[in-house]
């Protein structure tokens, strides 16, 4: 089976993210095994649960939640990139607590996870 890892570096406010999500959706529909999606640089903003987009615009964050729930898609967040951008990386705060602004669909990981994903995947695509 073909294994794929995807790296997202564009923020949810950019249409480039729509392309990335369409690509991931197409891969899942073709039963490609996506070993993980790794969010890096401005891509970490996809995990920000405070992001509130008007309902008539593209809901990137909600799309990830749907994909996560439907396909058990692993979503990894680079902790360092996230805390630089104001996401609450604090080991003492649980992700489902009101104090955290990280959506609990996302796993707080490190770049070590990217090394693992690269090894598991047959292809790595950066968006």
């Amino acid at each position, binding site marked *: 089976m073909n294994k794929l890892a995807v790296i997202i570096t564009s923020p949810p406010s950019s249409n480039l993210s729509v392309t990335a999500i369409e690509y991931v959706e197409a891969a899942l529909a073709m039963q490609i095994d996506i070993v993980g999606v790794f969010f890096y640089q401005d891509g970490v903003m996809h995990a920000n649960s405070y992001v509130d987009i008007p309902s008539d615009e593209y809901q990137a964050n909600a799309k990830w939640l749907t994909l996560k729930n439907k396909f058990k898609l692993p979503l990894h967040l680079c902790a360092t990139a996230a805390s630089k951008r104001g996401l609450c990386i604090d080991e003492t705060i649980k992700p489902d607590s009101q104090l955290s602004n990280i959506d609990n669909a996302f796993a707080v990981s490190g770049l070590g996870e990217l090394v693992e994903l690269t090894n598991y995947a047959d292809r*790595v695509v950066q968006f």
Partner: protein
Amino acid sequence: MANKVLAILNSKAPYSSTFGKDSLDIALIFGSYEQGVSLFFQGEGVFQLIPNQDGQQLSMKDYLKTFSAFEFYDIEDIYVCLESLQERKLSNAFHIEKVNILPAKEFAAKLKQHDCILRF
């Protein structure tokens, strides 16, 4: 599952964005995990290699100094595109040693040998 060798293609000048630093962090982590990683510099990315830079004057963390520690991370394969240097009237003087200058064709051939290529 096999250990993959990663190529990172650096294409941005060092100071006005975080791309250089973000790419360096990936290179260091691959090195720390004893995972092969090669660095390529093309376009504006070659400005990450020129000598006599001092990010401190811009109140930047001077991450280019970390390049000198590559040997401790087993990062040995460093390639720079000859045409990119020539376009910018740059010589073969760099702030680190053992940089391989390759004409575009050979640069491309080296790059394409890698299992995985990320560009920053």
